[in-house]
């Protein structure tokens, strides 16, 4: 089977799986396993398709469906970029579905009918989005995915908060889709009345030549549309509300696939549709600036959160900012320094792959903790490492990865981003500033995840409900976290494993030779990265020598540590001699970083931000009484008219008074009038 067939097969398996799980929904465990089997098969098909594309080159198919009137056709086309996303989607789909099986036990009141079918349809939509080569069907799959995801967000449908979040989510993303539709139709009109990607590129080219102003509008609409989905501040305002509302595995799936598709769209637009013009400079800068804004606002706001999933959600905003920064710098440097463009965008997309792994892992870990303790409030939990060691290890690995601690995966991708930003500083100083902000905030990310990890897993054992049995989650919930945590290490110590496919994904979309070859920019070795953007090696990240050094020094340190052969004694925590209850000595999540959080508060007049996250004041809808009265045609037009008519008719009927003399008088007047008229007519 060709990769395109496999992609279609994968989509079909997701849909069939959705139907089968819907039929079996009464027995939720069995339903979960059936769904998982289908997801596994579909993921196998999707990842095989992806891998085969990387081995044998992109694959395109004849259109499955054609709408001749519109010039749209459902064409399955798997290029390197699609292949990359297919593999990520396959991975995330598998782990989150597996995690869901036991996770749903905690919510017996909610039907599985609203879970697995929707989840599978969601994944089917995602696969559709990345495999289609036609903007109309792209939008169809895109909205289909949004639709399924909406139902997953409002899975807890008795929860007013979840409902409000779901409403906001669906409306905001739907408006974003309207932006996409508007932009795509404009390109359709200017690109030869077709929706294929080639036609979109033609449309952009034509606009760039004939109507540069309109091109900016189109790019702006596309940017808003995709950035909304990607959760970029301020367009992604829905995200911190909707993510915590959904069940944990769903949130993991969202952060691993759906938000990433926003980036997919942006990359398609700004690398495939947009040829190298000066427009790249404007939009690259805008993208990078919004990315950096998102990095700062998302992460710093997350610092102030005490709800584990809300904390993670804000950090999604931050991490998506890094990815967008990479993409934006890539776009910016396309006309200027192609090597830097390659560096930046590969860094961005590499970060995206990493983010899919560690962020999903963190959401799953938060879900596992919630599953056992029944709460997401970090103020109520603590010290779970001893009881849930595997979850703790996975969460710590993912936290170190997201914080970019070497040798975990986040370091490698952020390292590429920093290099792109700093080395670009010679050409465009603003990238330097963006890079610095990104790097500062990376430390805030570390602070953020140290908070998450230390509060949840270390410190005193705390749980809101002492009667609940606290132990490690079952294997089917540990395994997904484990797989993702291992990947956090793998991509860190073998960055080439991800960087090469990512580079292929980008280079495959560009006209040949626009960016230098892989080895020229990233070094020829397969062990690590040795960057060269034109004037020799400017920095290297070779994980293995560093790891060996770390291991050797750690061994040395351990030898010294054990040199005295000191005996180990255990004694309770020392509170300087005073007696305290556990409650008194508990250190709450809320107290962490208080002075720093105070520094971040912004106050303008009566308006004060929550952290640094702006909150819109509640608006009161005006009553529009006069407008309602104006539109009520009955009251001021029809009824008065009818009443007036009725009165008029009443006047006439008054003449029928029953007095014979009066009738005679009318007759006389009438006759005289008639004669007068006749005479007048005759006279003329």
């Amino acid at each position, binding site marked *: 089977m060709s990769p395109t067939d496999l992609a279609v097969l994968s989509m079909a398996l997701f849909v069939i799986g959705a139907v089968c799980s819907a039929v079996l929904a009464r027995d939720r465990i069995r339903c979960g396993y059936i769904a998982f089997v289908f997801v596994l098969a579909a993921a196998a098909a999707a990842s095989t398709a992806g891998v085969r594309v990387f081995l044998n080159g992109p694959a395109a198919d004849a259109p499955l469906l054609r709408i001749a009137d519109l010039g749209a056709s459902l064409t399955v086309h798997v290029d390197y970029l699609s292949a990359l996303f297919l593999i990520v989607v396959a991975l995330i789909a598998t782990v989150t579905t597996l995690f869901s099986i036991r996770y749903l036990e905690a919510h017996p009141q909610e039907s599985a009918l609203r879970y697995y079918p929707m989840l599978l349809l969601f994944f089917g939509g995602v696969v559709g989005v990345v495999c289609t080569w036609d903007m109309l069907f792209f939008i169809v799959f895109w909205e289909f995915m949004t639709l399924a995801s909406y139902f997953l967000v409002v899975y807890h449908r008795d929860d007013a908060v979840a409902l409000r979040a779901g409403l906001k989510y669906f409306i905001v993303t739907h408006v974003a889709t309207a932006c996409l539709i508007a932009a795509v139709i404009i390109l359709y009109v200017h690109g030869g009345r077709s929706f294929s990607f080639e036609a979109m590129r033609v449309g952009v080219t034509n606009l760039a030549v004939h109507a540069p102003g309109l091109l900016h509008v189109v790019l702006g609409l596309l940017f808003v549309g995709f950035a909304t989905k990607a959760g970029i501040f301020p367009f992604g305002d829905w995200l911190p509300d909707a993510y915590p509302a959904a069940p944990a595995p769903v949130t993991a799936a969202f952060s691993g696939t759906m938000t990433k598709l926003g980036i997919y769209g942006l990359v398609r637009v700004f690398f495939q549709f947009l040829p190298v013009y000066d427009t790249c400079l404007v939009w690259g800068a805008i993208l990078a600036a919004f990315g950096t804004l998102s990095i700062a606002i998302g992460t710093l706001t997350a610092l102030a959160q005490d709800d584990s999933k809300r904390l993670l959600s804000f950090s999604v905003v931050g991490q998506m900012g890094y990815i967008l920064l990479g993409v934006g710098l890539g776009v910016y440097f396309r006309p200027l320094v192609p090597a830097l463009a390659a560096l930046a965008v590969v860094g961005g997309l590499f970060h995206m792959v990493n983010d899919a792994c560690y962020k999903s892992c963190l959401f799953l870990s938060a879900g596992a903790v919630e599953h056992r303790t029944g709460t997401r409030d970090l103020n109520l939990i603590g010290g779970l490492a001893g009881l849930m060691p595997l979850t703790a290890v996975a969460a710590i690995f993912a936290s170190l990865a997201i914080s970019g601690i070497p040798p975990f995966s986040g370091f490698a991708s952020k390292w590429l981003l920093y290099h792109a930003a700093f*080395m670009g500083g010679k050409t465009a100083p603003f990238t330097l500033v963006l890079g610095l902000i990104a*790097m500062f905030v990376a430390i805030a990310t570390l602070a953020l995840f140290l908070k998450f990890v*230390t509060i949840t897993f270390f410190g005193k054992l705390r749980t809101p409900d002492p009667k609940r049995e606290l132990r490690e989650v079952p294997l089917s919930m540990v395994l997904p976290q484990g797989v993702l945590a291992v990947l956090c290490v793998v991509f860190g110590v073998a960055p080439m494993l991800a960087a090469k496919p990512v580079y292929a994904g980008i280079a495959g979309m560009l006209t040949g030779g626009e960016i230098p070859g892989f080895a020229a920019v990233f070094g020829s070795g397969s062990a690590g990265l040795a960057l060269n953007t034109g004037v020799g090696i*400017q920095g290297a*990240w070779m994980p293995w020598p560093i790891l060996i050094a770390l291991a050797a020094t750690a061994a040395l340190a351990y030898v010294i540590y054990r040199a005295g052969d000191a005996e180990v004694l*255990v004694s309770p925590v020392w509170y300087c001699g005073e007696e305290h209850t556990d409650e008194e000595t*508990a250190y709450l999540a809320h107290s962490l970083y208080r002075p*720093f959080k105070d520094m971040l508060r912004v106050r303008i007049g009566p308006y004060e931000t929550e952290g640094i996250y702006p909150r819109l004041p509640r608006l009161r809808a005006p009553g529009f009484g006069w407008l309602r009265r104006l539109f009520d045609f009955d009251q001021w037009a029809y009824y008065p008219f009818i009443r007036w008519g009725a009165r008029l008719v009443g006047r006439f009927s008054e003449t029928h008074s029953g007095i014979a003399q009066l009738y005679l008088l009318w007759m006389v007047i009438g006759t005289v009038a008639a004669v007068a008229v006749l005479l007048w007519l005759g006279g003329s």
Partner: protein
Amino acid sequence: MTTVIGASIQIGLVLLLGPLLEGLMRTLVRARIHSRQGPPILQPFYDIFKLLVKADVQPTTSWIYALPPVLCMATILTASLLVPVFGQAVLGDYGDAILFIYLMTASVVAIVLAGAMSASTYAFLGLAREIMMMLTVEPVLIIWLVTAALSAGSLNLSDMAAWNLEHGPSVSMIIAGLAVLLAIQAQVGKLPFDIAEADQEIMGGPFIELSGPKLAMFEWALWAKQFVFVAMLVQIFAPWPAVAAALAGSVALGYAVSVLLLLAKVLVVVVLVALIDAVNPRLRIEQAMLYFVSIIFLAAIGLAFAIVGI
């Protein structure tokens, strides 16, 4: 093989010179200013040897508790291999300035984890301060390295040093170096910025529950960190005189001379650090953070000069 030998020598130097410098500072500077005798210069070594054999009292039975001290030491020793002493640094081909910053950060992570594992309120109080300090101090370090990188056109530490050596002092580097000097007290955990440990206040913060070999490892690691950090500062900021070119023929001699020169430069900075440490009271955390925000602006001005090329 030379790499391994070089690495071993460098690690050995760091392990030895870290405590030695601390001892020198205590006796020669702080005690002098306090008008007292002061402990023997080798006192830090005596402390370490004593702690290594003392009982290791810990609040949990978990073996994980042994990890942070070891990791802290390992990250700092690895970071020391990135310091360009004579020509290219030992690990200079494999990592760069960003790795150095992150390794320094990783050592803080180890301290934080150690504090968190001990489950004491004081430890949490201390680790929160530790992180907040990191949040405001690290930017200074980053801006400084980026300033150097921008001038040198490379993030490779040896390239930066080489560029400085070749082009002499520039306005941007002086401003940025000044900023780092102003931030150095916090980086090495000295007064007025030893807020995270604050013995009189929160009993050592993250280290409150540590004892015996663990405490020894952390103390040693922090002394080593102080040395590594100052060494990096002087090597990038003031790599003169140009030994490498003059003594290119003889590696051993060149290296030895470089080390001695480095030591001399480090000593100057360390004395300065000890002076400030001895005459200042501790700041509160929010005062410290505000102070560093202004330092960040200073460093940023240096960066601005680097952008325009002076």
